[in-house]
């Protein structure tokens, strides 16, 4: 077993476990902390896939900025205990059964559609694709318009969030 396989099992195990724990905890703060751990494990997987720039971005943007925002909002709101309010008792089991069925379908598609034996990844191309140099060059040449649009979107979101969250002025 190579080091890569061991690391993959470690990170994938953490990501899968924390995602399940996240949706089953009744305490929101603990759920948010499990989601942060999940994002950290995903950053590790990105590193295994040679996507170094996105691994760092994942830690800074997701595990850092977005989850801090979540925790602040949880702190502002009154933490209330979730009580089950399904009118029909079996509804929750039904939802999990649907989710499981869809997962089986996806797994069947992934495992039996076509063999990956034919795919021989070019490791050097893969390493080159993930560097900040390649991504920066693409971003500022071929994808300059979406990049500027993303900046405008962030500005609009900032203004929108301020207007939505502030108190009404009489």
């Amino acid at each position, binding site marked *: 077993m190579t080091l890569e396989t061991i690391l993959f099992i470690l990170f994938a195990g953490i990501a899968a476990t924390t995602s399940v724990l996240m949706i089953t905890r009744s305490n929101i703060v603990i759920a*948010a902390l499990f*989601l942060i751990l999940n994002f950290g494990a995903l950053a590790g997987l990105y590193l295994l896939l040679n*996507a170094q720039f996105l691994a760092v971005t*994942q830690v800074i943007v997701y595990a850092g900025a977005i989850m801090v925002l979540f925790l602040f909002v949880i702190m502002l709101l009154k933490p209330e205990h979730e009580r089950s309010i399904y009118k029909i008792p079996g509804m929750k089991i039904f939802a999990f059964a649907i989710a499981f069925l869809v997962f089986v379908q996806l797994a069947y598609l992934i495992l039996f559609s076509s063999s990956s034996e034919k795919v021989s990844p*070019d490791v050097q191309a893969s390493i080159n694709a993930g560097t900040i140099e390649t991504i920066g060059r693409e971003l500022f040449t071929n994808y300059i318009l979406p990049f500027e649009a993303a900046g405008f979107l962030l500005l609009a979101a900032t203004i929108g969030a301020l207007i939505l969250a502030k108190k009404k002025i009489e």
Partner: protein
Amino acid sequence: MSVPIEYYLLLSAFMFIVGVAGVLTRRNAIVVFMSVELMLNSANLTLITFSSFMGNPVGQLFVFFVMTVAAAEAAVGLAIIIALFRNKQTVNIDEINILKW
């Protein structure tokens, strides 16, 4: 790259389905929102997997833009949740039903 591509895709599918189950079963608006983030991340993992195995940076660029949109969406969505809480004193999505006829 000794780990086959199927394992990454299976993990991504699993996380997506867990996110779907979270949206379907949880009643707290914040947890529902976090489940949506989980689904976004599983899609990101798929994009990066294909991008890396094909040696093509465009998939990773797309993930970069998805992250931008996710940040904007988180800011606006949480502001909406705060505004909802201020009006209804609850974040339970079953009690927020004024748009349901």
